[in-house]
């Protein structure tokens, strides 16, 4: 009972994950992104060792297909896993083990893998893909968020009889640095995707400030001053 899109931005080479689920603190499992290397997610019955292994193999130059084959060979319970892998060139591969629960499946497209399990139906994964592809020129984090929002709007997790709320969600994007561009999380909330969008919209106001004060500390204003300017600007806008 999780739905996810991992993506590669063809304009910028950025790599990222958008994910939402009933389980709490799902962002904890989103450690499979590395600049100029690739992005991967393991879900359903998660093999937590997979992400680090995948990134090391991609770094060595293995193709996503070859990496997936190695994961299968390395794991006696591979059929319980759901996995997506994209390399730095946007080559993508997905796997949904036959033992994952509920409706489960994935869709692989140009620079993305949309995948989910415990979903109300295949249209959820189609909707995630459509959401991700809706604005191909937008920033990757925006596209990832649109993907999971579209998945939720199409019914998200649960069964046809009974839907299931998203309690946690995460949005992670790397560009060319050793640290994340965007790394936002909602760990326990009754409508985690809405809360993730709220945090992202608020974070965007601070994003340049946080970056610039680090790079140019000698000229940085205090954060409370910056926040006061934001409030004043908001009040001045009718």
């Amino acid at each position, binding site marked *: 009972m999780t739905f996810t899109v991992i993506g590669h931005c063809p304009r910028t080479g950025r790599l990222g994950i958008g994910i939402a689920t009933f389980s*709490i603190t799902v962002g904890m499992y989103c*450690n499979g992104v590395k600049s100029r290397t690739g992005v991967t997610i393991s879900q359903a019955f998660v093999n937590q*060792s997979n992400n680090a292994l995948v990134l090391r193999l991609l770094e060595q130059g293995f193709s996503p297909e070859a990496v997936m084959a190695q994961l299968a060979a390395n794991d006696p319970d591979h059929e319980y896993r759901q996995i997506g892998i994209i390399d730095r060139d946007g080559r993508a591969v997905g796997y949904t083990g036959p033992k994952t629960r509920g409706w489960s499946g994935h869709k692989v497209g140009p620079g993305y893998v949309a995948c989910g399990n415990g979903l109300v139906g295949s249209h959820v994964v189609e909707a995630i893909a459509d959401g991700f592809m809706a604005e191909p020129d937008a920033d990757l984090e925006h596209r990832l968020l649109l993907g999971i929002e579209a998945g939720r709007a199409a019914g998200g997790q649960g069964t046809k009889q009974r839907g299931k709320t998203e309690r946690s969600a995460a949005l992670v994007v790397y560009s060319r640095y050793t*640290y994340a561009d965007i*790394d936002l999380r*909602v760990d326990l909330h009754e409508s985690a995707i809405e809360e993730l969008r709220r945090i992202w919209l608020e974070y965007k106001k601070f994003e340049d400030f946080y970056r610039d004060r680090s790079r140019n*500390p*000698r000229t940085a204003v205090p954060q*409370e001053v910056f926040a006061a300017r934001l409030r004043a600007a908001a009040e001045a806008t009718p």
Partner: protein
Amino acid sequence: MTYSIIARCPRTDRLGIGITTYSIAVGGRSEGIRANAGICKTQAFTNRANDPIAVDLLAQGYTPDYVMRALAENDSDHEYRQIAILDRDGNAAAHTGSGTRSWSGHRIGDGFVAFGNVLAGAQVVEAIADGFAFDPAAPLEFRLLAALEAGRDAGGQVGGEGHLTERSAAIRVVAHPDYPDIDVRVDLHPQALTELRRVLQEFKLYEVFYRERGRKPREAITQDEFVARLEKTRAEGRV
């Protein structure tokens, strides 16, 4: 306007970070922790490149003191940074640059560093250290949380008009695997530390279930069933 603790559990060798601040999503800037290597946390006017460099150097076997010198030589604005480094054995180094905003400072203890900037005063860092020392038998994640809560209760961070609220907070703990043991966050909340305790306590109820269903999927019950059992236990007042 951030206060933090990095620490090693002497019983288990686990390593952990606890942090809270006014800034949004501070947990997204706390990647400087690696199993069997060590921890580095840079704050104040954060140089984001520092923590990954430091952890790589620790993994290669350099000492925290050496790593700190390497960071200093690599950064023309080092005096604006606040940095704490801990290796896998609990050896520590700390730096509070003269360009950080007062009150700022750190305290190095046995296997930990408590540090912060734009705080109500030195008593905040002392309280963090005392909070960490309070229950040495507790799991590291709860010791880190107790430390942050003690820092908050001692006045925490300040802004132009007194106490500045904590809007984000995070606790991350690694054991020996190359994925986190504990990784809980609050990214934007009016009482981030209170919310972090709620999230951590709830996570602890699921922790074993989440780990075991991945390791032994053939025996795993559904999460629906797990939640039903958990809520029954909770309703009976046994949680």
